[in-house]
């Protein structure tokens, strides 16, 4: 957990800065509105976390989100009765796409970067092939209420986010989560300990696909139907996860920090808006923060700091004495 502390510090600073610029943020509705905006990315980041911590990438989630929203609009087409069956279908589809990603990566041994890049192309092409180039149909109010409405003062998306966070935290504490991280750290050792490595990784992809489905349901309601709804989300999700201190390559980092990474990104965007920095520069700031955060995390600490932390250091690699010795 120590590795996760920096991101919470950064997030706290950003939240304070937002509150200073906009005191409404300190009131419950203001804060909930912020959480509501952050929820889709946070959920997507949670899903991406499973894949990254297992040592893989999922680049297909952006396309998947778009595909899911477009499919929902076309299938529901304004018919309230179709809402629930379609939601079920979206979840199944998300899981299925994850299953395919996982199977191709683990069984056919295609690097996940390529597998999910291929899936990204396939999904983007297939959906528009099916709808003839532009989104058609419409979502119902029932469907959109998940992204827009709420239970009393609390938005549904906040409740859904809470449910997701609870679920993923429990999952990471359970045997599955612990073995998944060990698998990402050292697949060979995990396999020789009886871990079914392909299965564990495939489940991670399935969870990522499911998270994309949930994200799509929220975004469809929140932002409406468009062909761009999921654009670039895969990179945002990876950015969030990495900002949270999760290491590309697997085996290190916590899911809570990954979700905090998503909130940090959203807080950053909010702050930039508040201070009137054009939406255009948003991505530039995002890029700087991304590089700076990772660079600061990976730079070797000065010797005095390293000594003070030898027993519990986690953010940097100390030379390993057992390895260095003969």
């Amino acid at each position, binding site marked *: 957990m120590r590795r996760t502390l920096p991101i919470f510090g950064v997030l706290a600073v950003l939240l304070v800065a937002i509150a200073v610029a906009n005191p409404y943020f300190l009131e419950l509705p203001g804060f909930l509105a912020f959480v509501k905006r952050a929820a889709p990315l946070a959920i997507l980041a949670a899903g991406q976390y499973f894949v990254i911590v297992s040592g893989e990438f999922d680049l297909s989630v952006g396309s998947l989100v778009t595909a899911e929203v477009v499919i929902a609009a076309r299938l529901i087409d304004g018919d309230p009765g179709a809402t629930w069956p379609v939601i079920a279908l979206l979840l199944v589809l998300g899981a299925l796409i994850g299953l395919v990603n996982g199977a*191709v990566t683990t069984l056919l041994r295609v*690097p996940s970067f390529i597998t999910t*890049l291929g899936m990204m192309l396939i999904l983007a092409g297939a959906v528009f092939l099916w709808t003839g180039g532009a989104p058609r149909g419409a979502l119902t109010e029932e469907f959109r209420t998940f992204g827009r409405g709420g239970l009393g003062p609390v938005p549904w998306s906040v409740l859904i986010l809470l449910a997701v966070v609870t679920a993923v935290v429990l999952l990471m504490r359970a045997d599955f989560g612990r073995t998944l991280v060990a698998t990402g750290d050292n697949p060979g050792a995990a396999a020789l300990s009886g871990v079914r490595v392909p299965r564990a990784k495939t489940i991670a992809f399935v969870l990522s696909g499911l998270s994309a489905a949930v994200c799509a349901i929220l975004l469809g309601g929140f932002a409406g139907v468009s062909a761009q709804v999921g654009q670039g989300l895969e990179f945002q999700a*990876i950015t969030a996860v990495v900002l949270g201190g999760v290491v590309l390559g697997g085996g290190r980092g916590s899911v809570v920090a990954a979700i905090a990474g998503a909130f940090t990104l959203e807080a950053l965007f909010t702050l930039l808006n508040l201070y009137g920095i054009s939406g255009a520069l948003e991505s*530039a700031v995002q*890029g700087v923060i991304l590089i700076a955060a*990772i*660079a600061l995390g990976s730079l070797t600490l000065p010797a005095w700091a390293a000594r003070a932390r030898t027993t519990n250091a986690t953010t940097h690699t100390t030379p390993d004495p057992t390895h260095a010795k003969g």
Partner: protein
Amino acid sequence: MTQELRTPVPKTPTWRGLRDVGADSPARPVYLSLLALTVFAWILFLTDGGQFFSQVNTVGILQRSAALGIVAVGQTLVILAGSLDLSVAFLISLVSLVAAETMADYGVLPAIGAVLAVSALVGLVNGLVITRLKVHAFIATLGISLIIKGVLDHRYDGPAGSVPESFQRLGYDRIGPVPVSALLWAAIAFAAWFLLRRTPLGYRIYAVGGDPEVARLSGVRTDRVVVAAHVLCALCAGMAGLLLAARLGAGAPTVGSDGGYDLESIAAVVLGGTALAGGRGGVAGTVGGVLLLAVLDSVFNQLEINSFAKDVVRGLVLVAALAIYARRRLAR
């Protein structure tokens, strides 16, 4: 000693120049596929009453693939070195604008100079962030690409600058039947091939990508090699940006990202048999990969298939190809 020295330099059967497509070469499958696909396309065009090898069609294929081809050559260098560059798409947009605006004010040569300087700088920053700040290449180049995007979004709403007629000819002119853009691509590809095959830097790119620790223990200054590869990759992206500016007659802030040059160039490289992890493969395979994608497009056009289907098939081809390569590696 003299007697021992008589041992001949061994008789490896392959003629050197063929090493790139020889039995041992990672580039071989892509050329076999390209050949098969070309034959298929040729028959398809015949039955459709067309001619695959018509000048219009082949020139079209070459012209369409030149920009991606140039970027992919650069991408090959960084991937071989064990890195990757996601910033090429926005860099292309940026330099197209730099080119068009500088040309409008100062003329062609200064513009080319400015483009190369900007590209080299971006490549240098990519390389330094990766090697000095120890940021994973994926994150580093993604970050740089976001920064470039921010600058573009901030300064431009649409196409800007203008490219003089004389320079636009780079985009469309032909020398004999061959488009100038394809010649440029061929020259860049050849230069990169030569770099990899004949220069110390090329040898070290393979070494660093193959195993950075081995390279370091052998005295290779690995950081410099990675930085150099990134600078060269960015220069290639810069050339592609120039080419696209010539085509459009102006600079455009979305020309790179709309073309998907970042991920497509990576796709072309791995289609060509270069290992995503580095150290194995080469430019020849990449050229094959780009041509394969282009012929595929041409087939789609002939069949008048919806452009969205192209994406689907591209995705399938990419994954299938990599699955086959993985099997071949396992079988050995």
